């Protein structure tokens, strides 16, 4: 099935690990990292990068504007 390929880049130092992007993602791409950032939060990362379609749902609900979304049409 042809679908868009996407990728997100999380600004690790801005992320507060609120899990809202994880809940908003329809493809279960994002999870919180075991590592913490300088503020002590478990930041979001792409645990399942292949599934990302670049739909921007995660970035829309992110309260701290830490997510940049890239998309390539297939």
């Amino acid at each position, binding site marked *: 099935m042809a679908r868009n*390929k*996407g*990728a997100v*880049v999380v*600004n690790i*130092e*801005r992320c*507060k*690990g*609120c*899990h*809202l992007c994880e*809940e*908003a993602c329809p493809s279960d791409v994002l999870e919180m990292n075991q590592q913490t950032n300088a*503020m002590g*939060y478990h930041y979001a990362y*792409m645990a399942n*990068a*292949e599934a990302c379609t*670049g739909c*921007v*749902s995660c*970035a*829309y*609900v*992110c*309260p*701290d*504007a*830490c*997510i*940049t*979304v*890239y*998309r*390539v049409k297939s």
Partner: protein
Amino acid sequence: MQIATYLLQNHTIMTLQEIIQPANKVYGKTPLLTDTPMHYCPGCSHGVVHKLIAEVIEEMGIQDITIGIAPVGCAVFAYNYIDIDWQEAAHGRAPALATAVNRLLPESCVFTYQGDGDLAAIGTAETIHACNRGENIAIFFINNGIYGMTGGQMAPTTIEGMVTSTSPEGRDVMLEGYPLKISNLLTILDGTCYVTRQAVHTPATVIRAKKAIRKAFENTLAKKGTSVVEFVSTCNSGWKMTPHQANQWMAEHMFKVYPLGDLKDQ
């Protein structure tokens, strides 16, 4: 097995590098939001609304003429996060200050950013009179049903039965009155041109909320009167929930009392 994993990882990294190119960027932080990390709790609705306001100002190209009025409450530091001109109002007095700024600088685009403790409690009189005069301002109203900054006390907007630090048994309407639906009150005033109630807990509601913010700014530029955009919001710290639980609780309970949608559009 180790070699296979390595190859898979390598393949993933290469693919990601191909995707993550400036030409493929579809969404990112607007430059109007400063690099200062917001002081809000993780998952707070304030951040989303700040982001949407900054995006709309950037898209409309009105950064130079927009003046925000910051409130007292959690959003008191709003002036640190959006790169426009700001004034800081005394508690609840943002609409009065916005009136002054707009009358002195009639070509400016003035908006206030207020919480429910600010707008619907101590600032009720200023809010109602500014709307009744039809001041040419936009009012962005964050309604999370409690006083978030001071420790989650009951506010006029607290819904019936809601547990707060000063109503541990839930709000009793026989003792403490009914939740104040101030946006509904403002619709009957002739000075308001646009009153709407939005939320920012899902991608779909975020898109609708952004359109409402844009409409409020367009009304202000067209000098149509006062626009009020209420955001039914969460305060997960004050509600003692995770951000996701707070969103679910809001959708289940708050939307019954504060249904979303346009209340007035002229």
